[in-house]
């Protein structure tokens, strides 16, 4: 019996690959399995190979498996492209229609998916037939998908639901007749607990809603668009609004306008959009306007690899704007983090009155995965130093209200426009305490220092999360969605007796120099794992003064996420 399974469905983009994968994943998640799915797709609507790889397990993994046990293939290309990663004896269920062929190390089951689907009512139900065949192989009950299918097709009427369920049953029966039910592939039963199943984008969007975001301005871009699409559905329930702007510059400046206006406002984008927003992010820093920007990183530069994994915006997020501003850069690693990071981002933005960039990456943003129960109680809202009309009496000076009042912390009182008694000017030009423009050197110096002071010597809590051996010989440092692959490699090495630690970076600015230094203090070696060419995180470590005599990099920039085995092999080579 299997304690974990790696299952994959492949076909041409647009022929139901994604919905097949999702139906499979949701159904198993509801049975209490831990499920992690990863989509391989291209930047086109129809055509081109795409696949959905789903890992099912009795314990949590946050990465796709290194191999595939069972492959559903809707075309020969899906076999050719994916058979290399199939384990010996693995099972391929392929549509008999295209007379599939496969190498000898796997077992190929041609099933007349299209023909059976046509007999059930329509050829498009071939994915249902394939799901039924899968259930048979894995020793799952034939009705395991019924609930999901009913939810999905209820709107289309009972007849459609019944046809789909029948297609599943026929696929199951056919596979059984072919002798496909193999005890070796039977999945061990799970605990039956119903956990959540969501992507990082889902969690970021829900997190934004819970954090009180009420204005979102954004321009569609892969892999960020889900966030605005989700919130467009939800905002009417809370009186908020999502504007699809004409470009990312408008998205950023509209966000700034709304934040200045008193809303919790944010935008979400990917690398190309982040590049366009840079000037305005500088404006937010200069005017001390609290805004949140989500950057779901993808392969750059330029259009680059728009549907592939990369973590190459780290330096851009930190240093992209011209001039110097205080800003905060947060890096969630899991879906659970994605939910809470938005409240952190808004709270920090308003406490420190500066832009906050939340760095996700494609793998984290798009991979749907089993997620622990999210609680609204975990969200708190702190709007920072904001004055009401009543508070303002104590703050009136002969020069008027001092929006940029010099304080020890550098944080000045904020007033929302519309508040009586709080009139002030805001400008991206250097200014005095009242906000009026002033380009003199003495003022520039103190005002620059006031702004930069806000984050000086701040190290955010939980900026580094460490696991593994306290006195590890090797500490692996990672960021973002690589948490899963690194953790898996570390666990395997630990099981083999190696002393390995893992320090995951959750904030890039203020850079957690102290915490990282502590995490690697006892290590003989440090390995920095990241999805980019130049080793940006490693450069940041040395830029911000993290010291260690033996630091090396493991980078991957081919558009694919790390597999656990790649990190495992590399670490083993170092030990």
């Amino acid at each position: 019996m299997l304690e974990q399974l790696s299952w994959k469905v492949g076909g041409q983009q647009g022929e139901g690959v994604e919905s097949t994968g999702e139906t499979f994943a949701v159904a198993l998640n509801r049975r209490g399995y831990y499920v992690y799915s990863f989509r391989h797709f291209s930047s086109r609507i129809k055509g081109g190979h795409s696949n959905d790889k789903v890992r099912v397990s009795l314990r949590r993994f946050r990465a796709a498996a290194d191999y595939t046990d069972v492959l559903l293939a809707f075309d020969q290309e899906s076999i050719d492209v994916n058979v290399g990663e199939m384990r010996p004896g693995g099972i391929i269920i392929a549509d008999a229609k295209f007379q599939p062929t496969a190498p000898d190390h796997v077992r190929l089951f041609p099933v007349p998916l299209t023909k059976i689907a046509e007999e059930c009512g329509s050829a498009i139900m071939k994915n249902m037939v394939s799901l039924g065949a899968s259930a048979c192989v894995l020793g799952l009950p034939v009705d395991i998908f019924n609930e999901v299918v009913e939810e999905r097709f209820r709107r289309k009427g009972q007849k459609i639901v019944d046809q789909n369920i029948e297609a599943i049953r026929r696929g199951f029966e056919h596979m059984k007749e072919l002798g496909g039910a193999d005890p070796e592939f039977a999945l061990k039963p799970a605990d039956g607990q119903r956990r959540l199943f969501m992507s990082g984008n889902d969690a970021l969007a829900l997190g934004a809603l819970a954090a009180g975001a009420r204005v979102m301005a954004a321009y569609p871009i892969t892999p960020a668009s889900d966030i605005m699409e989700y919130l467009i559905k939800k905002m009417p329930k809370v009186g908020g609004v999502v504007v699809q702007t004409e470009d990312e510059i408008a998205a950023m400046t509209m966000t700034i306008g709304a934040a200045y206006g008193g809303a919790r406002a944010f935008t979400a984008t990917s690398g190309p959009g982040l590049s366009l927003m840079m000037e305005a992010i500088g404006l937010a820093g200069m005017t001390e306007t609290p805004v949140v920007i989500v950057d779901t990183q993808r392969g750059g530069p330029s259009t680059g690899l728009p549907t592939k994994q990369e973590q190459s915006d780290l330096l851009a997020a930190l240093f992209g704007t011209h001039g110097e501003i205080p800003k905060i850069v947060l890096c969630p690693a899991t879906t659970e983090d994605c939910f809470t990071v938005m409240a952190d981002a808004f709270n920090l933005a308003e406490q420190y009155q500066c832009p906050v960039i939340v760095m996700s990456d494609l793998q984290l943003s798009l991979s749907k995965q089993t997620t622990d129960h999210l609680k609204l109680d975990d969200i708190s809202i702190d709007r920072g130093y904001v004055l009401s009309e009543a508070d303002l009496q104590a703050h009136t000076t002969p020069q008027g209200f001092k929006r940029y009042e010099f304080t020890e912390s550098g944080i000045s009182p904020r007033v929302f426009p519309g508040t009586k008694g709080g009139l002030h000017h805001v400008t991206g030009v250097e200014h005095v305490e009242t906000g009026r423009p002033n380009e003199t050197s003495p003022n520039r110096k103190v005002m620059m220092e006031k702004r930069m002071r806000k984050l000086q010597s701040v190290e955010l809590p939980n900026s580094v999360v460490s696991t593994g051996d306290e006195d590890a010989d090797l500490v692996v440092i990672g960021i973002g969605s690589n948490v899963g692959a690194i953790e898996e490699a570390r666990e395997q090495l630990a099981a083999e007796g190696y002393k390995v630690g893992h320090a995951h970076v959750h904030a890039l600015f203020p850079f957690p120099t102290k915490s990282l230094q502590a995490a690697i203090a006892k290590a003989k070696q440090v390995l920095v794992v990241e999805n980019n060419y130049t080793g940006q995180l490693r450069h940041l470590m040395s830029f911000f003064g993290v010291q260690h005599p033996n630091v090396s990099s493991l980078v991957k920039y081919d558009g694919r996420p790390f597999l656990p085995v790649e990190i495992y092999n590399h670490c083993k080579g170092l030990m």
Partner: protein
Amino acid sequence: MATVKDFRNDIRPNWCPGCGDFSVQASIQRALAALGKEPHEVAVISGIGCSGRISGYINTYGFHGVHGRALPTAQGVKLANRHLTVIASGGDGDGFGIGLNHFMHAVRRNMDITYIVMDNQIYGLTKGQHSPTSAHGFKAKTTPAGNIENALVPVQIALAAGVSFLAQGFSSDVNQLVRLIEEGIRHKGFSFINVFSPCVTYNKINTYDWYREHVYNLDEVPDYDPTDYNQAMKVIAESHGLCTGVIYKDVNRPAYEDQIPGYKEEPIAFQDIALQEDVFAEAIREFA
């Protein structure tokens, strides 16, 4: 009730003596007072350029942002607080050069804000380069042999993009300009007022006298009907974009804010933003 004086502050504008922008500033102040607005109920959002400084010279809430982006910033302010009177403002380079994209989309979106452009057909603050509204043949620092590009006609573009209130004024005719701004602010939807505001330092062609000679004042056309779209298009073409007065208005088009599903009358800025437990629970169920 606030008077014109309440909309003035003690900052001396850094505009050249004789600049058309002084009249625009005074007209906005007079219009706001005439409309019975209080200074704290108004936000002036401006772009970059000589005219972009205007948000600092009017005693209201003011935000002076980045070049060309006054309109998206102003729309953001309006979304956060729909009770504010939001005025976006800037010059022809800011609005029709770097910011033209936003202009057409702001027109199309039709939020209830007012956009006032001080159009002097030149880049003044950067010392005399041609602008998107400079005429063909116009000589400037960047067109020493004469402009080989054609001028853009702002009111024509606005009308083509579907503007719901369109007017054009001239700095020399303050009484008309005050009326246009008043009517623009009262209009429920996006109002655009292009103002010929001469640059006395760098534009020696399009001077006060030149405009006096060339503008075509619709106030003096007895049967001009600003609700007639075709007539508006025609008059813009026939006057080569130099007509002044209310050119077009469509009072039946709903403003953006009035169409946002679930958007409340109470401004977002002053709402309780804690998420209701039942809304959260419903959202969570979708992922279970």
